[in-house]
């Protein structure tokens, strides 16, 4: 099966997932039969407004978050040469969450907008994790990386949980945000996310060859004219930005950056030039499916997106960890 065909199949799968995400729900007048009609023809019906005002933003955000996080995970795995790295395991996701939590609970500190606060949190957490694990200077001790990431993540999350207890009213709101409940998301939030996704995709493609060469080791990279430190730094920065943007829009969604690159590698190989578009598509598809499932799992109640992704991603990580032959 040629590469083009695989891309096409993946794109088709993503489209189907998107349709499912749009269609599944408690309304009986929205179905696969009339979804296209409802999307493109304004007949003023309640069904139309449900689809366009409530579900479409949600679907868009889900897809974009998926793409962003998958790209972030891919970058982190390339940069750490560790197939088990991801934004959740390295604490970056949780750092972004902390950025948002701080911004929300102490509005006076929010000198920039929410997106940027999340990104700052992500960068800070990532920086901390990498520094503990040995810095961006090559000798990244794999076990230290994971343990450092988990600790940074746990610390960030403890602080986030702390902000719950500060204000009673905030508690339910924060809880739902922390589990990435995107049921009330608005179209306006999808806009910046799309921008970040586009930039992220472009930046990833530019770094693709660098990532490929990085996997050969620092010495070899240098010899081939690719500065490993610079590539690592840019890759980590990219991951932090994409993660931050996603967390700001939807809340922390775990493990997408782990699962999607893994699965895509099975089908698209190790070349990052091919992996990047695949991973973006795959990420979108996975989270769209998760969104659809979030409406089905406890029908007619909804389960937040983050919870679904964690329930899928954590066992996947466990199985991957058990089967990991080498640590680095």
């Amino acid at each position: 099966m040629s590469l083009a065909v695989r891309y096409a199949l993946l794109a088709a799968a993503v489209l189907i997932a998107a349709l499912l995400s749009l269609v599944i729900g408690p309304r009986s007048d929205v179905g696969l039969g009339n979804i296209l009609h409802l999307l493109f023809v304004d007949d003023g019906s309640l069904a139309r407004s449900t689809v366009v005002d409530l579900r479409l933003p949600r679907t868009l955000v889900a897809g974009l978050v998926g793409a962003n996080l998958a790209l972030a995970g891919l970058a982190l795995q390339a940069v750490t040469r560790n197939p088990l790295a991801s934004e959740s395991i390295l604490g970056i996701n949780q750092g972004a969450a902390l950025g948002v939590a701080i911004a929300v609970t102490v509005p006076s500190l929010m000198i920039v907008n929410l997106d940027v606060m999340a990104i700052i949190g992500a960068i800070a957490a990532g920086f901390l994790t990498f520094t503990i694990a040995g810095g961006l200077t090559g000798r990244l001790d794999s076990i230290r990386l994971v343990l450092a990431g988990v600790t940074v993540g746990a610390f960030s999350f403890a602080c986030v949980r702390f902000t719950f207890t500060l204000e009673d009213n905030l508690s339910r709101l924060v809880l739902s945000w922390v589990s990435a409940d995107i049921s009330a998301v608005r179209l306006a939030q999808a806009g910046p996310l799309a921008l970040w996704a586009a930039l992220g995709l472009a930046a990833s493609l530019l770094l693709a060859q660098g990532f490929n060469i990085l996997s050969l080791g620092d010495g070899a990279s240098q010899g081939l004219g690719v500065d490993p430190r610079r590539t690592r730094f840019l890759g980590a920065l990219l991951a932090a930005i994409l993660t931050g943007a996603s967390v700001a829009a939807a809340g922390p969604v775990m493990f997408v950056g782990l699962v999607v690159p893994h699965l895509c590698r099975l089908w698209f190989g190790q070349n990052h030039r091919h992996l990047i578009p695949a991973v973006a598509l795959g990420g979108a598809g996975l989270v769209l499916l998760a969104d659809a499932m979030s409406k089905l799992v406890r029908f007619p109640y909804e389960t937040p997106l983050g919870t679904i992704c964690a329930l899928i991603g954590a066992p996947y990580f466990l199985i991957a960890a058990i089967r990991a032959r080498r640590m680095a």
Partner: protein
Amino acid sequence: MTGTATVALRRHRDRRALLLIGGAAVLTLLAALWSLGVGAVAIPVDVIVNTLFNLDGEKQTYIIMRSRLPRIVLALMAGGALALSGTIIQAVIRNPLASPGIIGINSGAALFAVGMTILLPTVPQTWLPLAASLGGLTAAGIVMLVAHRRLLSAAHLALIGVAVGFVFESGVDYFLITSSDAERSAPLIWLTGSLWGRTWDHVGMSLAPLAVLAGMAMVLAYRLDLITLGEATATGLGLDVGRQRLIMLSVATLLASVSVAVVGVMGFIGLMAPHIARHLIGGGHRLLLPLAMLVGMLLVTLADGVGRAIAPPIEVSAGILSALIGAPFFVYVMLTTASEQET
């Protein structure tokens, strides 16, 4: 060096170690006394003494005997248990970044405890330590099963522990999300690690198990020394590494789980206490375990006291404080120590 000179040197070193342990014990007692006095109602020392020893003079019997003393006692017990657990785990995983949380114990205990509270609300709270212990054992058990089957390295074991922790965490989150506001408020607060509202009942249900487990931990001291030499060398010295690792991790798991059951998840005590103690007294576990235990007691007692003293009558939970102090401390330690050798 002559025989007598070496013996003298060893005695000097032992004396220093015993002084350290004695000093830590005194410090802990002082911290406990101080902690009895702070909070929404500040109580001076003489009143405390009067109340504790039933002397003549002003007393604050209710606050001290009913409200604060059980808290302090529990803080001591939990702090000691977590510290012992952390010391054992750091020896087995041979990594100073390891802690009870690392092999999923905290998450497992939390899951079973929260699950019990939400799914079986009619079951009395006294069963909580049992549920938490089962949860902790399940999580650690999964890790140990996998490690044993495949004779994993310590590093790989830690990774699996992290993964198991995530799985159980996601379960906890699921429970929290799908429960109503009323159902979830207690577990939520309890999850963050706190001594608020703890009574003599809590002390009663955890005293016996923790005392027994602490005793078992002390007996393991020499074996812990051997296991830090690595699986290869330890086997060469005649240690049945697989079996001993299982015993050690079981004791560590139970210590942490019972603690989680009564005070919730206090993540960083099991990480910090062994570190501090090792820095002061070296790596020999016969001395390290008691000192780490005292340091743990001191840390939790202080965290609880400071949490009440910061802005009375508001209470900042001990778990949060220990995380807020613990994490930067941990970062500082990691940044200043070289990478440990690993297999």
